[in-house]
């Protein structure tokens, strides 16, 4: 790890002002520090947000819920309010990483985490996402990689909270150069592009303030398939919600960003959940544009099965 300066920021505004491209915001550090130790990011400065005036914790507001940026995954997992009104989110938090990491990791950091792709994380690989010319995963060991083609990068988004928050239509409050603004989670996430090789649309000096959840989703579930019982990133995960407005079905671990299966959500409104044949047809349609790589075709099967299981659980 290269030497760096460290400064705690007193306010979000000052943190945003101080930030340049050679600095990194720092809170839980569970993602940033691992990348620094691997020498795949070597900032000159860390701006610590932990003591800044950022919202921390979970509170009810205007019929919805506000989750402060510094709220830890453990706080979310243990919040009775979230367990009751947003079980999909509580379950997602509980299935993430390990208790030690959940005690430390913040919700904002979780959404902003970089891929765990083993090419991206190898300092000897100059992959497309790190500014190189191509993605070695496309023709390499891509067991854990994307089945939906969103960019030249084949890495998947490994956040457990992200699919849940997309399903919940969360909004993200940020403090940037021009003051505060709020954007929908679907605008917050975006597959990397030629000029912006990261997984969110945030500007360099944007500080996440909070996550806003507009309405309850007490009938919801998060399912995660791993290659070990605990402490692994999702091979595939699904966040599903059934409400008066209809269904929400969002996948994790299958693309650069969480993938909302919009057509499937619509079709589910008119499909009898106990009619497996009809469901299977809808699933096949939902994955018609999947482009599995050499070693990850199983993810299509796995995703369909997890979705079916989630629908069954919510249809009981």
């Amino acid at each position, binding site marked *: *790890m*290269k*030497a760096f300066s460290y400064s705690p920021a007193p306010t979000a505004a000052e943190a945003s002002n101080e930030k340049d491209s050679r600095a990194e915001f720092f809170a839980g550090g569970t993602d940033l520090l691992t990348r620094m130790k691997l020498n795949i990011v070597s900032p000159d400065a860390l701006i610590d947000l932990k003591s800044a005036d950022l919202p921390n914790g979970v509170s009810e507001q205007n019929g919805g819920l506000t989750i402060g940026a510094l709220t830890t995954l453990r706080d979310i997992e243990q919040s009775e309010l979230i367990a009751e009104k947003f079980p999909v989110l509580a379950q997602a938090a509980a299935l993430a990483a390990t208790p030690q990491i959940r005690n430390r990791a913040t919700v904002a950091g979780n959404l902003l985490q970089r891929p*765990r792709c*083993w*090419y991206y994380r*190898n300092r*000897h*690989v100059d992959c497309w996402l790190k500014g190189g010319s191509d993605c*070695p995963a496309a*023709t*390499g*060991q891509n*067991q854990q990689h994307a089945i939906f083609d969103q960019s030249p990068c084949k890495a998947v988004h490994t956040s457990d909270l992200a699919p849940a928050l997309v399903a919940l239509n969360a909004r993200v409050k940020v403090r940037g150069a021009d003051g505060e603004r709020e954007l929908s989670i679907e605008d917050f996430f975006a597959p990397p592009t030629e000029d912006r090789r990261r997984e969110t649309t945030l500007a360099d000096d944007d500080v996440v303030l909070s996550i806003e959840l507009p309405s309850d989703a007490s009938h919801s579930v998060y399912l995660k*398939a791993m*290659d*070990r*019982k*605990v*402490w*692994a990133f999702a*091979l595939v995960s699904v966040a599903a919600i059934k409400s008066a407005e209809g269904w929400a079905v969002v996948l994790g671990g299958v693309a650069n960003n969480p993938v909302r299966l919009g057509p499937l959500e619509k079709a589910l409104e008119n499909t009898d959940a106990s009619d497996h044949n009809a469901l299977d047809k809808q699933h096949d349609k939902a994955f018609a544009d999947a482009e599995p790589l050499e*070693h*990850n*075709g*199983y993810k299509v*099967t*796995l995703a369909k*099965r*997890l979705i*079916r*299981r989630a629908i069954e659980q919510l249809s009981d």
Partner: protein
Amino acid sequence: MTIKTPEIESSKNDGDIELSLPLQQDLTDWQTGHEFTVVGKPHSRLEGAEKVTGRAQYSADVRLSGQLYGAVLRCPHPHAKLISIDTSEAEALPGVHAVISQNDQFDIDWYSEEAPLFSDQLRFVGDEVAAVAAVSTEVAADALRLIKVNYEPLPFVTDMDQALADDAPAIHDGDNRVEEDSEYERGDCAAGLQQADITVENEYRTQTALHTALEAHGATAHWSGDELIVYESTQGVHAIHGLLCEKLGLPMNKVRVIEQHMGGGFGAKQTLWKPTLFAALLSRKAGRPVQLLLDREGENLATGNRNSTLQQVKLGASNDGKLTAIKMTCRINAGAYATAGEASNVAGIFQHLYHCENVKTSQVRVYTNTGPAVAFRAPGYVEACFALESAMDELAHKLEIDPLELRRINYTGRDQTGDKPWSSPDGLKTCYERLDEEFGWSQRKAPSSEGSIRRGYGLAAHEWMAGMGNPPAAVFIKLNTDGSADVVTGTQDIGTGTRTVLAQVAAEAIGLPMESVRLLLGDTAIGGVAPVSQGSFTVPTLAPAVRGAGENLRRQILEAAALLLETDATTLEIKDGEIVSTEGKHKSLTVADVCDELAPQSLQAHGSRRANPTDTTIRPFGALAAEVAVDTQTGEITVIRIVNAPDCGRILNSKTANSQVIGGVTQGIGFALTEERMVDHNIGLVLNADLEEYKIPTVADIPTITHAEVNLPDLNANNTGAKGLGELPLIPAAPAILNAIFDATGLRFTQLPINRARVLAALQAQQETAE
């Protein structure tokens, strides 16, 4: 065959008291164990409290005055020529005290190929290029980044199959075969296959697995005048001692190797690796102690692995289940170099486990541009047991014979390669009985189905080529003037409980309570030469010598007591530190009283390990059964329970024995389900040289593991009846789990590990076939 009465192992006593007691007196106890007060008991580890309170000093805890910290620069290419290396900027960095590289022109060779310590031919990602010592690990890491290396990348091959292609790049001179194929045949295998009513034939692949000891490789080296002291994390202090002397050209009385506690080795620490020598060389150059401990990346890239294998197996059998032929051909991925230590013996289990007159095996090691392989807990047998026991399960299924019954049908009590009896001919049979009792194999339910969950049962058996122990081992016991005893050995406790178990043997043999015995080990300056703790050797090597020394001392104490009591020594015994009359009368006397009378003189005794018998082959055995659940929708595998019945002869400590079973089976679950070193063969890089993506099982992955104690003293093996245990529980775990998966789902896997990708692909293929 009858059980012989072995002789006490000891050298001639040179004390003042003449020995007159018949040696046979105590043997009854060691045959039956009925009178034991210490041996066999579940004694907690002597150093347990020290360890759990963090006070035990491991190699990483050593802090010497002025100590520097080392780090290693590694080659990022799978195959490259080092054109030049410039370390000047690193040397100029404040806080850096020494840098070593090819520029130092050390005349030291390494690996079986005798490559230079710093070679200009770099043959795997992680190959060592330079090392630095600095005031902190951070400064050392900074220094590494300042070293300028000019590499010329060379064509490489990391895949074992591709390495044997005609146009494959040569890793050393020649065709990438490490040696000629090692062939074995008895009977006529081709004829045996022709006679068979039924055959089973498959190609099995096992993965490269990493030892993943909690404590990485490393050492602290310190020159005191012209004497080198090394605190090392090793399975063999004497092996490191010898190798350091050889590499550095030092006399053995100028080098001392110390290790009191160790955080796991599993075979990868049975020989000297470069980092320890780097620590010594850096320390000499810097004039200060140097601690060089590897990070997980270095550990995973360059300190050994379980070689991947490709095994072609064909079994022939008659309709009644009797094997008529066993044929096995295998390739082993040696990595870029051949290392010292236990060889990976894939062929062994095919030659020995079952009665079969026609057996043919062939194995060869293949070079690839990957980190060198080294022994890993039952090297070869773990890989081979998966293949053989999967094939046997398939045979049982095809013949509609119960898998346990099929194994009994093919039982042998003899070593068919040496044509002599096993030391414990009923050992494996007893394992089968105990497994059946504890698991309820014969009473097991039919495979069941609930929703998408399928449950099934599987088992596997094995023998193990080591575990017999071997000389040399010399033990010295000093009876202190207060009646307590210091037992001095040259072995080491690699975390298995050796210290405790040997103290129990000493206490039992002398007649002292455990609290009165101190067991010394892990220091080449105090103990006699003892073997590396490999091959489940330590207890069966050391315990007989400890017992010998203990019995020797006991006799001396009794002789002295007899003089004091004016009686015949044969009427006396020592129990729990007290001199007891077998005739029920004399005044009370303790061992301490005897010592007090003798003071300032004191008693001492030696014991040494005899050669093993030549008319029998010593063998440990084992059997293991698993119950597994498979979710046929999501491919999730859950191991529900495991029962393991290993025959390690007499169990000297049931608690530490349980630990070996739990640990070994846990590693077996990882080998079966999650662990695999991944290499991108296009670019030659290792992708998971970390703990994040090299997935060892977590507590949540481990079911209840039951140790079905066999506890069958093998007094043909040695005078304690104990054989090795450490490696046994890992050997049969993966095939038993895989056989249970077959029982549950009808899916037969021939490639490890069985992760979701493989399960789901197989389920899909099964479904398509059904449609």
